[in-house]
């Protein structure tokens, strides 16, 4: 199962992911209804995209009193049956990542649906700060980076020894 993987080190903080999300779902432009959120701490230069955890045992689904939330078995996203949602915000309170909200216009649950398996936010990310890939894809990348770094250090040490 693919998920949205985050690399905040290369996030430019532009918030295009939020706008692309809103455009895809609401057909308009803004950030208020985004299902992906970028935290910016400007004095420190920090930009961090937050995404839905696609939790296997999803607290939002468990908390929903009307069973309006359910898991899409293909993508793993939590989807909403709008007719069953009563807008009670139980899912908002339950989400450990702060990634559930209520739509300011409809009052219904607002949770990442992965755009049906082709997330609009990822398509618009210019820097690769968010990618749609299997869990562990970044882990492999991190391991490789670590390996390269270690071998570089070894080479450096050898060079020093040679001198």
């Amino acid at each position, binding site marked *: 199962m693919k998920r949205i993987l985050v690399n905040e080190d290369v996030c430019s903080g532009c*918030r295009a992911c939020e706008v692309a999300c809103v455009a895809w779902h609401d057909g308009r*432009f803004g950030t*208020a209804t985004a299902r992906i959120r970028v935290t*910016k701490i400007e004095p420190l*230069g920090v*930009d961090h995209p937050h995404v839905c955890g696609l939790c296997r045992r999803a607290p939002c689904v468990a908390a929903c009193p009307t069973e309006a939330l359910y898991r899409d078995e293909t993508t793993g996203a939590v989807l909403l049956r709008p007719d069953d949602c009563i807008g009670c915000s139980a899912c908002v309170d339950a989400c450990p990542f702060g990634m559930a909200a209520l739509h300011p216009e409809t009052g219904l649950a607002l949770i990442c649906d992965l755009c049906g398996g082709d997330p609009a936010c990822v398509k618009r990310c*210019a820097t690769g700060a968010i990618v749609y890939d299997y869990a562990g894809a970044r882990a492999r990348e991190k391991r490789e980076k670590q390996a390269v770094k270690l071998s570089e250090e070894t080479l450096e040490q050898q060079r020093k020894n040679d001198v």
Partner: protein
Amino acid sequence: MYSYGGTILRINLTDGSIYRHPTEEHLAQAFLGGRGLNVKRLWDELPAHTDGLSPENILVFGAGPLVGTLFPGGARFNVSAMSPQTGILGDSNAGGFFGPELKFAGYDQLIIQGRSDHPVYLWIKDDVVELRGARSLWGQDVWDTTLAIQQELGDPDIQVATIGQGAENGVRFAGVFVNLNRPAARTGMGTVMASKNLKAVAVRGTGLIPVADVTRFSEIIEQLDEAIYNHPEYEIRCRLGTTKLIKALDSIGGLPTRHFQSGRFKEADAVSGEAIEELYKIKSKACFACTIPCSRFLVVDDPRFPGLRLEGPEYEPLAGFTARVGNGDLALALKCIDLANRYGVDAIALSEVISWAMECYERGLLSREEADGLDLTWGNGETILALIHKVAHREGFGDFLADGVKRAAERLGKGSEEIAMHGKGLEVFQADVRSIKAYGLGNAVASRGADHLRSEPWFEFSNDPEEGIRRYGIPETAFRLEYKGKGLVVKHFEEMAAIADATGVCKNTYNNMEVLDWEGTAELLRAATGWDITGEEVQRIGERIVNLERLFIAREGITRQDDTLPKRFLEEPLPEGSGPSTGSVLELEPMLDEYYRARGWDVQSGLPKKEKLEELGLD
């Protein structure tokens, strides 16, 4: 109104009244928004010869129709008023995140009138608009004010446009700053804001902006993204932003070294964008929804400047605090830029007054005693830092410089006026226009005083004579050292710059990378607004804005005589050692003739002819 916020917000600070009216669609069709709609407002509502610092002046914030959409870099707003620095049109532009937030709150324009009797800031949360006390913020710098307001209102996503101490102390070239490091700092708009006792505008918007045809609009944006990703400059712009220009201008002999005494700078490599990337860059940063992260977050690890972190810089402040003042110490330059941002003053004007004082000292026009005992030798770091503090607080010799170089030179006299590098009272940017002639013409005729961002005529770097013939019928237009045809080039790029500022997009993409032509812009605006607009009409809007700005400054007495630049550019050949530009001067007069003719303006007076105004609906 598709792609607009839909509302104009008026605040009278004298009596605290707040008034709203719908954005006038007929004005939007004629001027789009941003800079265009702002100058229309000033023209209609400001009496001639209004004192820039009087309560009668109005301060207008505007964000155009593409702001807050997915347009890459559709992030920009303009702030405009009568300038207290130049006495003509004041107008400045910045990116970041403030413009989009204003649109999401539902506003295309804020018009601030009158003067509060005590310091206040304006808080806009969608429909709720409130003036709040700012006594505790007065005296605080741009960073502290921004963070204090976000904390007071309890939301770090609030966007703040604020002034620093420079504006409060009456520095005439103080700006309005957003996102801590992003200045709209030309022409003293912060100074106007301070004169109104308005410390900041804080805004949070939760609305969504509809466009007329979202499918078509999104398709065009996707094509634009592709064009940008495939552009030959994409990679270097992501790495270095405009700081790539330090080395580029050094190689052609176009740097403003020691106050335009040479086009090359021996220490250019050490203070280049590449050096910043290598030594201090943590990561690339971007404006709202931009695909080119051309800004950079820097952590400067230097024991002399503990805790120095900043975003940026652009080429302009970087060249200003390196080549222009003769300083080869990169960390020091970054400290200077950080101080300029925190005090909230224009780094271009600030680097000019300092480098002008240094040249005056070198020539014996200014003594050490007159400069508070400071050693004004080129590149003296302690002196440069001291002068920044002094200017921002208007202390001692800093008070003398804080009115801008034109006034300082008038006061000093002794011929120092001739080396005061300004046009119409606005300090010249960081390039020697003897090496780039279209930029020279652009600076001479720019409606807000000497400035490159009114035209940004990159085409003269193209070295593509075939394309010069295709576009302008003149092969020389493609070469920077030629002057023939540059009147046509500047006219064209002025209109592009006007459209960029009126729609709210970035000139890096729109002017320098030319990602959209007139027809492409029209296609996008059709999808955005639903108007039936053609490419020719888009060009006409650009032309209308340029002409109305000309009318505005003509009302303040500007004519052809004022469309000029310092004698140094016009008469002194670029000195030996300026590389391939050595020996060059700016042939301004023939370029002006050609420009006025291209514009349909009177060649003697430089004023628009009646027929031209009728044609543009400005009569």
